[in-house]
């Protein structure tokens, strides 16, 4: 074995430079991520007193158990999962559909591409206001089309509120989904499609057996990022329904927000936030493990 001889002074200097370079982001992450993250766990173990100003009381895992078993949390969890299931697959499929339609060399196609991707420049707030207006129980165009004028508003109806919020979200994220899918399609070499065509494959067959498998890295990425974003949905809930009616749209992040800013209960909020953290963590790991096997990154 040959020994690597390194000047000790040089090594220390390298290390020092390394730490110096990392320091700024370490400070930022520390203040805005690591400290709040740790503090969250501390909060989860302490019950918030009924009146402000009283000391927080250490209760171990009691509070965690209480919150996780509460019907309110479970409903929130169910609503969140439904919201993800409604929005993510639909968004990907619609984005892919539009991308396939726009993936032709036709005159004027850039106009369509621009339209299809335009919602990427729309904020959640703007999208929410648009749909809030369209769904207005008195003057909303959609309300009229749905034949519900004078009826209970779509956003006030417990059976339709979550769907309405999901549609708003799908619309708002469709631009990004379209751009991702378009980029994915452009990454599929034309040769492959052409080879499949000469090999005798029909257009649907080419899509299912050649294009779609080649897109799997993109689909995978869109699914992971889309799910994580959907689990953290907040703005559209706040603007459209405030978690109502009857908590039918009270997704986890919104319920965390309400616990802190409406009920002033940091402890309960912290438990929910941590639960959400683990859900997203597990989901990501599962998706990485499961999907990576079926994804063909190889060229």
């Amino acid at each position, binding site marked *: 074995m040959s020994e690597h001889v390194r000047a000790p002074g040089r090594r220390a200097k390298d290390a020092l430079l390394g730490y110096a370079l990392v320091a700024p982001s370490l400070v930022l992450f520390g203040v805005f991520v690591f400290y709040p993250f740790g503090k969250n766990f501390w909060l989860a173990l302490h019950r918030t007193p009924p009146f402000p100003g009283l000391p927080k009381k250490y209760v171990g895992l009691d509070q965690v158990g209480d919150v996780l078993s509460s019907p309110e949390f479970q409903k929130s969890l169910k609503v969140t999962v439904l919201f993800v299931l409604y929005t993510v697959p639909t968004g990907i499929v619609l984005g892919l559909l539009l991308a396939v339609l726009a993936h032709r060399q036709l005159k004027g196609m850039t106009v369509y591409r621009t339209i299809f991707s335009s919602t990427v420049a729309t904020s959640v707030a703007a999208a929410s206001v648009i749909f809030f207006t369209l769904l207005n129980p008195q003057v909303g165009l959609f309300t009229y089309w749905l034949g519900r004028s004078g009826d209970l508003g779509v956003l006030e109806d417990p059976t339709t509120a979550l769907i309405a919020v999901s549609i708003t979200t799908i619309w708002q994220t469709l631009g990004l989904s379209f751009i991702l899918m378009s980029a994915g399609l452009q990454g599929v070499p034309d040769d492959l499609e*052409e080879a499949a065509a*000469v*090999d005798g494959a029909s257009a649907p067959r080419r899509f299912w057996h050649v294009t779609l498998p080649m897109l799997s890295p993109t689909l995978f990425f869109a699914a992971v990022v889309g799910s994580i974003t959907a689990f953290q949905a907040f703005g559209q809930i706040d603007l459209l329904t405030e978690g109502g009616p009857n908590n039918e749209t009270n997704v986890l992040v919104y319920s965390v927000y309400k616990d802190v800013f409406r009920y002033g209960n940091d402890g309960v909020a912290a438990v929910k936030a941590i639960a959400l953290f683990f859900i997203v963590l597990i989901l990501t790991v599962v998706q990485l493990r499961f999907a990576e096997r079926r994804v*063909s990154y190889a060229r």
Partner: protein
Amino acid sequence: MSSITLTGVGKTFDQTVAVVDLDLAVEDRELLVLLGPSGCGKSTVLRMIAGLEQPTAGEIRIGDRVVNDVEPKDRDLAMVFQSYALYPHMTVRANIEFPLRARKVPKEQRVAQVHEAADMLGLTELLDRKPAQLSGGQRQRVALARAVVRRPLAFLMDEPLSNLDAKLRAATRVELVDLQRRLQATVVYVTHDQVEAMTMGHRIAILDRGLLQQVGSPQDVYDRPANLFVARFIGTPPMNTVRGDVERGDGGLGLRVDAVLLPIPAATASAVEASGLTELVVGVRPEHLEVAPDGAGVLPATVELVEHLGHEQHVVCRLPDGQLVTVRQGSHLPAPAARSSVRLVAPTEHLHWFDGATGARVGS
């Protein structure tokens, strides 16, 4: 197998003219090479035969069937792409099987045909690998196996060897010729490599800027190039060409090159006189040009440099008017010193005469 006939085929992309009024017949069981520099339209021709491009003029037939409006999948052709275009997410087996699946061939027959094709190309050991796990040469074989597996009417090959290294390319060339012979296949083979064209083609079709320049056997194209483009494009080093004016001398017509009047042979001279040409280009292949041993040659020249290639040497000479010519001679011959004055000579029967204005061959 089947013949392929192109009649008056043209292709224009927006503003660019890719192929002009092409008439070309590929005979049944023939290996026809489409040869030309990049951008000459040869790949476009191949893609039009495959149905990947729609011709803007003319008619394409496969056998007796006009296929202009037939989709690629229904033309029953097989294509080998320069990039091989293997499906990266499928195993070698699935890649080879794909054309059969697409045509709904029953499973037992599929298995048998895949094995036959894999066996033919020595891929049996690799059937369960993915393309990413293969070398360039192996990928190339998979692409070939995918083409041969279903016995198409004809094979279209778009520079299939250009991604291989030189040694493998030479070996694969031989195998391809052998494969074509065994399968009795009609092959249209696109390349920019004249060595591939000369060694593989039964006939060569040379294209330049979308125009067909000449079709003929390799020897024919080499010995009797139809025009200056073909003359200069085929052969390494390329044919020497010297431009001059036609003059009437003592013994008939001659070509004035600087101080020298090259006699024009009678057969050519009559053609020149008939068409009233005033400017000609004379061509001579480097192996037909000699440095006259005793200074008795016709053309005076100065040696610029000598390239030694081991088995031969290239003597690059400059004529008094500045034109460069190359003499190719065996390495056993003495190499003239650089900057020395020599005289060059070439047998009259090996001179090629071209119209100075159009570049077309003059005389026989």
